[in-house]
């Protein structure tokens, strides 16, 4: 099986990730930060190490500002609902995933007004348009770092600068870039960075996180036990306890920690370079096949490791099924949970075939994929 659905869940993982998940259950099996015994302490250590590694990866000064969630979706929900109040105004783009679009739609019901800035599938959102959309009551800008459909990168640093100047909270959905494209929350002026554990960061499914800038205090999505200030019936005010109620996903967090350590050891530039090579080969190969429409930017520099295509006159779902069953190639087809993006692209009817790469893919695999796509496009 050639696995090219890494934008959904990366596979395979570095060996150290499997080991860490195993050890988390066998050796570090206690409840972190709750009891004083060795098992609990061992789990607590892994938890804090993972925070530290993530802080290093995203250049966050204080690891305690990294909090763990179920996935990026939960992190985005916390970022949005923890800040926005009725009467606030929110700016977002037209190429967002449902993890942003749906909570935003729900917030409208609560009296939050929203401006959706038209986003170019080729160049991303225009910073000037974002700045023009900011009003007196604008509290937040929320954008993806890269589209999960076309891979198009948004100019995050420029928009971060605009947000800083206007005193607006900047929430970034890094679902397609964390671990793949360098992110510096300080240089990029990111106030909230939502990331999944199971994609570019190589962790298991069921863990993600949110970086929360030092000056922000959010309303938590839930309240409960934190192992701290236990006498009080009020949720602690300090991070991470304020946002991490209940026992965390320790095997997931341990695996995520191992994945981030792997990325730091390999170097994110090396990872990005490898994916550039593969993407260049893929894009030029696709352009040489007739009947293929490629969406998004032409150059790998302008995109994450994701590309969407259509085969003219062919159902995307069917093409993906053929790749799976006749060629043993896993890709994803359909709307990729991002109807807004497909509305922008004009692909709401047929969806697209999405090919998403990882550090573990090879040039030979890209060759096999290109041959398969050519065979399907030639047959149907």
């Amino acid at each position, binding site marked *: 099986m050639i696995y090219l659905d890494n934008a959904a869940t990366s596979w395979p993982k570095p060996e150290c990730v499997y080991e860490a998940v195993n050890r988390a259950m066998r050796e570090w099996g206690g409840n972190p930060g709750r009891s004083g015994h060795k098992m609990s302490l061992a789990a607590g250590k892994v938890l804090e190490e993972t925070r530290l590694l993530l802080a290093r990866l995203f250049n966050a000064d204080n690891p305690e500002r990294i909090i763990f969630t179920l996935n990026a979706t939960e992190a985005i929900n916390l970022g949005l609902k923890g800040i926005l109040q009725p009467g606030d105004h929110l700016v977002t783009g037209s190429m967002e995933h449902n993890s942003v679009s749906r909570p935003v739609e729900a917030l409208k019901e609560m009296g939050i007004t929203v401006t959706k800035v038209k986003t170019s599938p080729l160049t991303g959102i225009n910073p000037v348009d974002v700045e023009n959309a900011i009003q007196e009551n604008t509290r937040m800008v929320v954008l993806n770092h890269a589209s999960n459909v076309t891979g198009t990168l948004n100019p995050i640093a420029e928009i971060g600068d605009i947000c800083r100047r206007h005193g607006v909270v900047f929430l970034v959905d890094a679902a397609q870039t964390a671990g793949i494209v360098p992110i510096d929350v300080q240089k990029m002026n990111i106030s909230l960075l939502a990331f999944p554990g199971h994609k570019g960061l190589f962790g298991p499914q069921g863990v993600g996180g949110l970086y929360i800038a030092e000056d922000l205090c959010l309303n938590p999505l839930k309240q409960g036990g934190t192992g701290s200030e236990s006498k009080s019936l009020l949720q602690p005010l300090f991070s991470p306890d304020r946002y991490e109620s209940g026992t965390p996903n320790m095997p997931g967090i341990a695996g995520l920690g191992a994945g981030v350590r792997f990325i730091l050891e390999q170097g994110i530039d090396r990872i990005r370079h490898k994916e550039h090579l593969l993407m260049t080969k893929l894009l030029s190969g696709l352009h040489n096949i007739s009947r293929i429409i490629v969406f998004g930017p032409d150059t790998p520099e302008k995109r994450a490791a994701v590309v969407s295509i259509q085969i003219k006159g062919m159902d995307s779902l069917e093409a993906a099924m*053929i790749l799976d069953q006749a060629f043993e190639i896993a890709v994803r*087809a*359909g709307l990729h949970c991002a109807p807004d993006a497909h509305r922008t692209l004009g692909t709401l009817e047929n969806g697209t075939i999405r090919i998403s790469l990882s550090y573990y893919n090879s040039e030979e695999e890209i060759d096999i994929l290109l041959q398969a796509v050519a065979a399907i496009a030639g047959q149907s």
Partner: protein
Amino acid sequence: MRPLDRYSRQTIFQEIGEEGQLKLLQSKVAVIGMGALGTVIANNLCRAGVGYLRLVDRDYVELSNLQRQTLYNEQDAADQMPKAVAAVKHLEKINSEIQIEAVLKDVNSGNVESILDGMDLVVDGTDNLETRLLINDACLKNNIPWVHGAALAGSGLTMNIIPGQTPCLRCLHPELPAPGSHPTCSTAGVLGMITGIIGCLESTEAIKILIGSPRINRKLCVVNIWYNQFTYLDIEQNPRCLACVEHKFEYLNSVKGSYTVSLCGRDSIQVIPAKAGDIDFQTMAEKLKNLGTVKYNPFTLNFSASNSNLEITLFQDGRAIIKNVKDDQTAKSAYAEYIGL
């Protein structure tokens, strides 16, 4: 009139008698599937005075059902009545002294045990082997006897499965056949007479089992009314049968069985049969050509039904995308109907 008088022709029959009749009146029977077999069975059991009938089906009456599904009429089809509801409506007028319950559900591994809960006997009116093997598991596990029956074209078969006493259905079918490898009622047709005969045989056996008759059929009865054959075959228990010997209920525990996946975006559902097949598109196209438009290339076979907007894209390994269906069960039924499960 004495309470049993309405059954006098049956109680005078010595093998049943008043004692047998009283047993029937106290019995609870589930009929799974209210198509051609199920309507015949339910009609017989209702008239015979089985005290409680649970009729299970989620389909709606269509005009093309009337050729063989004997309880329904044109008005039911026009009203798009659920089969189980239409059946209860008609049967209540035939025998108001028994209880009849309509269950508008498709049987699956999650609900089969609750559907069969409290039943003394189950009678098979289903149209696919996978559901039958699920019923087989559930009945063996809960020690409920069941009567299996099936019909296709001009032939049919039936056998009784009594836990602890007879071989089971899985003794006969240790594994599911490959998808698309066998005909279905839609592709091969079925005569209303054979479903009538098999349904009558099944309901006779049902009554024998309920009253504890020593004359219960312990063989596999195979009938072909077009080629004039009526045969009783000996069947043996498979000494390694996973279901009745080892009590490993793979269908009930969903290790086996086909499943479905909704595809992001449209009214399309992928059906993944329990077993991967190697479908010959030419043969399949031949089977489907009278039912709609068929096209195929080396990778896929596309079928559009002529009587609805249903579309099926079939892949060589047996997986299929079913288009223009609302839910998983409809997709699975369409697969069972046209490709075969």
